[in-house]
């Protein structure tokens, strides 16, 4: 992954079909409505403290068709999913959902921070997103809390049959 937002755009990088592809995915339907007012960026709490994360820029790059720049960028993963941009967008673009669509595509090509892979594996193994230590489980009893409901990993896997991201996680597991 690299930070390439500020490099000049070459025509060879542009994929005119990209925006239509995103518009067909649930959550990305309203991408083309964006007129670059910048409400999303000015209201974004992360953008205030990040020098690279600008939701408006991600939307524009997507509209322009800069597929690799967008999907290979670390910046895409800085969104905190607070949905302020979605609520305040005057064009109802659902900015956070467009970013989620882009992240899903990035994840399928393997551009995904480790933390997400760990949570995914943990859910598949135990149902819980974190590996809850034995000690915690035992402590519950002494605190007078009821036993934690168990996950059913086998059943979870059955319902997840055919999920695209899982194929990637499994393929990665085999490569290890």
């Amino acid at each position, binding site marked *: 992954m690299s930070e390439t937002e500020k490099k000049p755009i070459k025509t060879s990088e542009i994929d005119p079909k990209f925006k239509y592809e995103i518009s067909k995915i649930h959550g990305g339907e309203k991408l083309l409505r964006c007129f670059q007012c910048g409400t999303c960026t000015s209201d974004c709490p992360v953008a205030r403290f990040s020098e690279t994360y600008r939701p408006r820029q991600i939307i524009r790059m997507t509209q322009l068709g800069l597929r690799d720049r967008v999907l290979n960028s670390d910046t895409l993963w800085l969104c*905190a999913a607070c949905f302020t941009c979605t609520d305040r967008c005057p064009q109802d673009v659902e900015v956070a959902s467009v970013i989620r669509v882009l992240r899903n595509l990035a994840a399928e090509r393997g551009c995904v921070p480790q933390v997400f892979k760990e949570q995914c594996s943990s859910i598949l193994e135990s*149902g819980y997103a974190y590996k809850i230590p034995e000690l915690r489980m035992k402590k519950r009893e002494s605190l007078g809390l009821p036993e934690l409901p168990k996950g059913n990993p086998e059943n979870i896997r059955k319902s997840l049959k055919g999920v695209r991201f899982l194929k990637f996680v499994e393929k990665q597991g085999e490569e290890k």
Partner: protein
Amino acid sequence: MSASKYLIFLGCAIPYRVSAYEISARKVLSKLDVELVEMPEFNCCGLPIDPVSHEMMLILAARNLALAEQKGLNILTLCPGCAGTLKKVNKMLKEDKALREEINNHLKEAGLEFKGTIDAKHLMQALIEDIGLEKIKNAIVKPLTMLKVAEHNGCHILRPKEFIGFDDPEDPKTLKTLIEATGAKCLDYMDETECCGAPSVGVSDKIALELARDKLNHIKNVGAEALITICPFCHIMYDTNELRIERMFNETYGIPVLHYTQLLGLAMGISPEELAINELRVDASKILQQVIVGEK
């Protein structure tokens, strides 16, 4: 007789590292005659997986909704993340027939079906809509009129408005109303509805802590003696990380961060020990002292 009965959905973060929230919530809910039934089986609500696979998030959430439907009970969550996700998916699947069929094809493989017969609510919503402010006020035996606090709502119980449909995300009132029911004064402060930074942990810890610091500064500036949260992740950001933020940015806060259920519990006369206040990282003895003095 119990006023309300729910299936309690703990989520992952609370059993993992925020048990004080669960302990205090169970105590106050029991005092308010709320009956909690444990989930028969559990998996993550799906929220942490949404960034990498929307499809997987939908299936994980739908599984939990389908399990609750089998029990015939509404879900009560303590975590706004779980509440937001379950509410959103519940609405999506109820309204979009094609999507429902697609997800049900997945669930069928596991012997489950989403029918759309129950609701999912966050604790705050259950308190205000089902249990009611009157009942809460009647349960107060020790009004906390000596306390000035600030509140922090979790993003996912407010936004996106279109899907959550609870309170006003630009000017949320519910938590304030619930806090003032305990007698405490709830102060306004700058950027009150802004994110605590928790979702950025693991991707950029620096940005996450800067966000929390920004909020803590605003909270300190208005003179709040405590911060009240209703989300396990926000609580971790402010309580677990407060000392870290103080060291990292050379700041001093000393603001204890209480789960709303602990504040309510104190006002209901439940002891600090029973509310697991000793589990808080930031020392809360100063405000506990005030509560005790105020009693005299």
